[in-house]
């Protein structure tokens, strides 16, 4: 073996060490999730297949929204409008789906497209306004939160849309070996998100902008484009989330989705993504969303009161972020 090979081998082992560190970071959240599952498995029914189906169903919408939220938070932004925009997308899609005289398949297809288009519209609005005028996205999306909610109420005149095609309704409750079809769709979205963030130039630059916007700009990257793109991606996922909501509950209404943004933000943060941007991963987000879902389910099975449940959920969010701080130190040393 010549020296070149030797150095390559050494470098290789170092890469493995770094990879191990990265895996450890995510494993931390995974361990928290497993610990939670172990604790709850002492309650009857928790590990039953129907309950697992339940948890996965309940995690799905938040997971889809959290994927989009991860993109936005990675560039140092935040999107408070997702809950309201979901409601707007749902009522638009619901209106399309219940148009008289449409073939059910066509109606569902057009509704899906229109929900995504509506989501893209609001994503573009959020991104363009905050990037062009350099307004903190916190404020911009607080504005669009109200705009979308108002628009949803306006479109429906505050009424609930119901009676979607039977096939669509059935599609929402479809399972494969106990795994809800809707959750599988969310997993595909997770995989796409992971791929985009880790394997593409686009993802790399997104992380770069989140870490140091000025350095990225001076390295020739169009910061404006990436910011708008992150919000637009979030909008697409909100549109998909709206369709998933409708498939699951068979209604669309202008008052749904209240507080969804906070759950999505919580999942992303619990998943180890830094609120100041530049650090985090989709896999972490997946685990974060699962932690929230498992907690909500397990605490009810434990028979805790609603008020205790709310308090414990709050504690867990804070605890997760504290643990993340320690994990950060651990992997740095």
């Amino acid at each position, binding site marked *: 073996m010549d020296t070149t090979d030797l150095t390559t081998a050494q470098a290789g082992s170092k890469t493995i060490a770094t990879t191990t560190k990265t895996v450890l970071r995510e494993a931390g959240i995974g361990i928290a999730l497993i610990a939670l599952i172990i604790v709850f498995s002492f309650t009857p029914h928790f590990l039953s297949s129907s*309950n697992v189906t339940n948890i996965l*169903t*309940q995690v799905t919408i938040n997971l889809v929204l959290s994927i989009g939220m991860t993109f936005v938070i990675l560039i140092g932004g935040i999107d408070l409008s997702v809950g309201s925009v979901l409601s707007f997308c749902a009522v638009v899609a619901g209106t399309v789906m219940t148009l008289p005289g449409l073939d059910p398949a066509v109606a569902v297809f057009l509704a899906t497209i229109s929900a995504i288009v509506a989501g893209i519209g609001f994503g573009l609005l959020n991104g363009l306004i905050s990037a062009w005028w350099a307004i903190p996205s916190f404020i911009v999306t607080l504005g669009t939160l109200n705009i979308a909610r108002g628009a949803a109420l306006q479109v429906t005149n505050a009424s609930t849309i119901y009676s979607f095609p039977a096939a669509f309704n059935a599609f929402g409750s479809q399972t494969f070996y106990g795994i809800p079809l809707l959750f599988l769709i969310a997993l595909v979205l997770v995989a796409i998100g992971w791929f985009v963030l880790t394997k593409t130039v686009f993802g790399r630059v997104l992380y770069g902008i989140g870490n140091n916007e000025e350095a990225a700009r001076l390295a020739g990257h169009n910061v404006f484009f990436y910011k708008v793109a992150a919000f637009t991606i979030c909008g697409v996922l909100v549109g998909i989330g709206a369709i998933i909501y409708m498939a699951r*509950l068979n209604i669309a209404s202008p008052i749904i989705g209240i507080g969804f943004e906070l759950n999505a933000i919580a999942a992303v943060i619990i998943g180890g993504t830094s609120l100041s941007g530049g650090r985090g991963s989709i896999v972490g987000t997946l685990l974060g969303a699962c932690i929230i879902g498992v907690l909500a389910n397990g605490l*009810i099975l434990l028979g805790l009161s609603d008020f205790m449940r709310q308090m414990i959920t709050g504690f867990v969010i804070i605890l997760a972020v504290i643990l993340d701080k320690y994990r950060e130190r651990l992997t740095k040393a």
Partner: protein
Amino acid sequence: MKFARLIAASVLAGTLAMPAASYAADKPVVGLVMKSLANEFFKNMLEGAKAHEAKRGDYTLKAVGMQSETDVETQINAIESFITQKVDAIVVAPSDSRALVPPIKRAVDAGITVVNFDVALDDKAKQEAGLKLAFVGPDNREGAKMAGDALAKKLGAGAKVVIIEGNPGADNAAQRKLGFMDSVTAGKLDLLDSRTAHWETEEANTVFSNMLTAHPDIQGVMAANDSMVLGVVKAIEAAGKTGKIEVVGFDNIPAVQPLLKEKKLLATVDQFGQLMAANAIDKALGVVAGGKPLEGWVKTDIKLVTSDDVK
């Protein structure tokens, strides 16, 4: 860019500036303080009131709604601005049975006729503030008991049931829960669990799915409103227990009509919300015109709705 900012600023300023109100001097002005207009129930109620205004034609209606169910601030501000505008009567559906007592007291002291409808103000709070005010509205507890009794009758004594509550702290949620509890006692039902889903479909779906896991033998559900019924029925379908679990609700919203028809919903309660505000306005105008002041609880109609009522 600067120009665009300027436009934005002036638009904002324009929105904030309150338009000066001017009313025809001869017609009495009624200020209507509503709850969340995002809620179909209150939106219908407001439309009923507007239709009523057009029909009577002898008064001017000024209505204010809230952003959300729990937005007490907006209601207090609305009452205070009605006092400033010197309206003749205020008709209010309080979002909080205690917090609204002081501003209502101020309105009464300013010589305005106030009618409290939909949710009754807290008796103790009224006493402490020295406020005497009648309540015009349905008996939520009685309504919930009607729905609960229908469930008890269908299932029989000893049946295992759960309650899905409305917002903790909301008076109508508390009253409806009491009504359901009355039915539980009277019908000797076995209450397994009672949890809030904050009036919301998705949350009711999640909460009820989880309840069903914890108690697979649930036979009946009492939901405090029909939005939550939608989520509960979907959870029953997902669990493959359609027909094995009976559901009752409250409010009789359009979206539950197909469920009643398919017998997925046993019964719901109609409190004729559309007429409620209009009735209260009638009562208020009667007093303004020199009629006798209202006293105690002026109950409005409620009705149990079952599949028989849906054609």
